[in-house]
């Protein structure tokens, strides 16, 4: 059977391992595709229910979009430090990469702290998950995002503890390729959550 060139993007010569993929990165992309369906499905349903509820009306008017904007800024900055950590790891500067990574993780923690205060304020004002369908969605969607962020923080701290002076060169760079991928994905999710749950219901 003649071999077609329709390899899915795989550079291939007969006598070498037919791959140029880093396994961790490829696996992470597969995982993120599944995650996209979870968040995408949730957001899609949220949009459709929003349309059927006339844009959520007064239910959505009380969400604290200013705190949300601050949190968005914090996440953007955490991604900046993540990207800088990747850059430092690429030139094998592990100590600097670790400093940037700790900034990323601590900014993540700051996000969670602000989010906790926001939840507390919402509860104090009576906007519990039972207040309205909008608030049910609000807690499920942001809650799921918080869990993802928490997982990312744990992984980043774990990674920092695993890097010692004896860690082989290139190890951190490889790991960061997919750990940061996950972090950026969680950020993309937040970008859409911020637009959907914070800005859109309060606009106009």
């Amino acid at each position, binding site marked *: 059977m003649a071999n077609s060139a329709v390899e899915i993007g795989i550079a291939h010569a007969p006598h070498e391992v037919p791959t140029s993929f880093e396994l961790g990165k490829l696996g992470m992309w597969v995982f993120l595709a599944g995650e996209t369906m979870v*968040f995408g499905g949730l957001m899609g349903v949220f949009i459709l229910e929003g349309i059927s509820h006339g844009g959520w009306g007064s239910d959505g008017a009380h969400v604290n979009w200013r705190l949300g904007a601050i949190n968005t800024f914090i996440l953007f900055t955490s991604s900046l430090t993540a990207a800088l950590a990747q850059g430092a790891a690429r030139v094998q500067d592990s100590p600097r990469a670790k400093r940037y990574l700790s900034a990323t993780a601590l900014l993540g923690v700051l996000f969670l702290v602000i989010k906790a205060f926001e939840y507390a304020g919402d509860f104090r004002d009576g906007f519990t998950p039972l207040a309205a369908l909008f608030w049910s969605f609000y807690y499920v969607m942001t809650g799921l995002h918080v869990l993802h962020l928490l997982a990312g923080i744990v992984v980043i701290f774990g990674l920092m503890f695993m890097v010692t002076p004896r860690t082989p060169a290139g190890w951190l760079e490889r790991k960061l390729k997919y750990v940061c991928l996950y972090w950026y994905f969680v950020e993309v999710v937040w970008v859409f959550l911020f637009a959907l749950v914070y800005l859109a219901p309060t606009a106009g």
Partner: protein
Amino acid sequence: MAETKPQSAPSTDAHEKMGFWRQYIFSVDHKVIGKQYLFLGLFMGYVGVFLSYVFRWQLAWPGTAVPIWGKVTAPQYYELVTMHGTIMVFFVAMPVLLGAFGNFLIPLMVGARDMAFPRLNMASFWTILVGSVLLLISFFVPGGASHAGWTNYVPLSDASKYLPGNYWGGNLWLIALAIDFASVLMGGINFLTTAIAMRAPGMTIWRMPLFVWQELVASVLFMLSVGPLIAGVVMLLFDRMVGTGFFLPEKGADPLLWQHLFWFFGHPEVYVVAMPGLGIVQEILPVFARKSIFGYRMIVWAVIVAGILSFTVWAHHMFVSGMNPVLAEPFSATTIAISIPFAVMLFAMIATLWRGQITFSTPMLFALGALANFLLGGVTGIPLGTNASDIYLHDTYFVIAHFHNTLVPTAVIAGFGGIYYWFPKMFGRMMNETLGKLHFVFTWVGFNMVFVPLFLIGLGGGQRRIYMSSVYTFYKPLQPLHVIATIGLLVIIVGQIPFLLNFFLSMFRGAKAPANPWHANTLEWATDSPPPHENFHTIPTVVRGPYEYSVPGMEQDWAPQAAAVDAGAAQG
């Protein structure tokens, strides 16, 4: 790109002697994990069969005491049918076809030393084990296991006021399912990464065995379909445990949403189960017909097209649900369209047999049985996918007979065929042919004895999910058919005795298996039986496609995919 990990050399620490626990229990070896999945799937399968035995007895002889169980009450009946469906689809079909065969075979068939992420692989098994245990525990919580049907439709499953006393059963059902999904997603990440990025030299995508293709497409389908349902499960858990109203009309939401989310996953899911099953049949047929598979590329494209179309058919489960009728016609059309790629596959498989030198060994018998019944299941899907006829047939036993005729041939009959076919590779011993054939006859005849009558009951208007059929006069003429079906189930159960004897005795007492007992081509037969740690002594170089049997001019009627350099493995 930088740092491609070369996989020609075994990792340095791999050949260290490992303790019993690391080697057999918390193993990261894909072969051991595959076997663990197989044992879990078989155990859960027999639990599921036992449940069906109890409610089928109730259906045949309503109100009589079931041997071993006693009288069946109405809540028990709904508990039994719910858990039978849940266990069979999510905790038998998926662990066996994806977990067991996918795990065991994908690295061997593509010529890799292990899965891409061995620890993730182990985590996947332990996750589904936790899910299975939770599901079994739910039988013993107050109120029993979920009564809401395997599709768990809202609002019945939503608030505790609709199914009073079933609070923890319903919650555990949702939690077990979410855990099961997480486990299969982890497996899918491994399958895709391994098959894409860890193939042996020369193993181009057009030389991959069809089983690998089918697992690959099935993993993509699962990855793309399950997300919204995971979101739905979380929402439903919130509804049940917190008191929100994501699916409750009285709180301004829409109960149809659950059905959409469930079937958006549920329909691709049946292909997630069917495709690996068909892949097993497609591996077995050429070997025992000594003929190349008919239309290899055509089958691959048919699988891909079926995979794409599977995302466009889900609302055919909902023709009578009160959804917007605008959706009915397009979904009827797509459903009829999806029968085309499956017909292509079936005809290709039948054409593979044409003028082959067929040996009716046990794996071949199961493959042929699966083929025959899958055809019946596929054909009866068309009246159900067409909304005009579905309105009559919906929620009758016709539906039950239809989906058992698609899922059982692929998951159970082909699955058994796969066990007989790959048992020598898994355990290094041969299974007994006589006991195997006995098992086939009982299973296949019994299966048709159950489900051909159920087609007739459905056509006669027999509704499903009726606990005490004897109280309805319209059911009287259909009742003898239920008796035949239940006797068929007893035949199946008797037929499992030779299998279990065969399986466990052969594992320890069977004749030693050669490396390639069936004279098959694919890479798993190019290594020892059972394969050594890290699978291959040297990674084979693939020189041809997987199905080159009876090539004119060759002195033997098979042509292994691997170039004959693997000195360590004895040729069969």
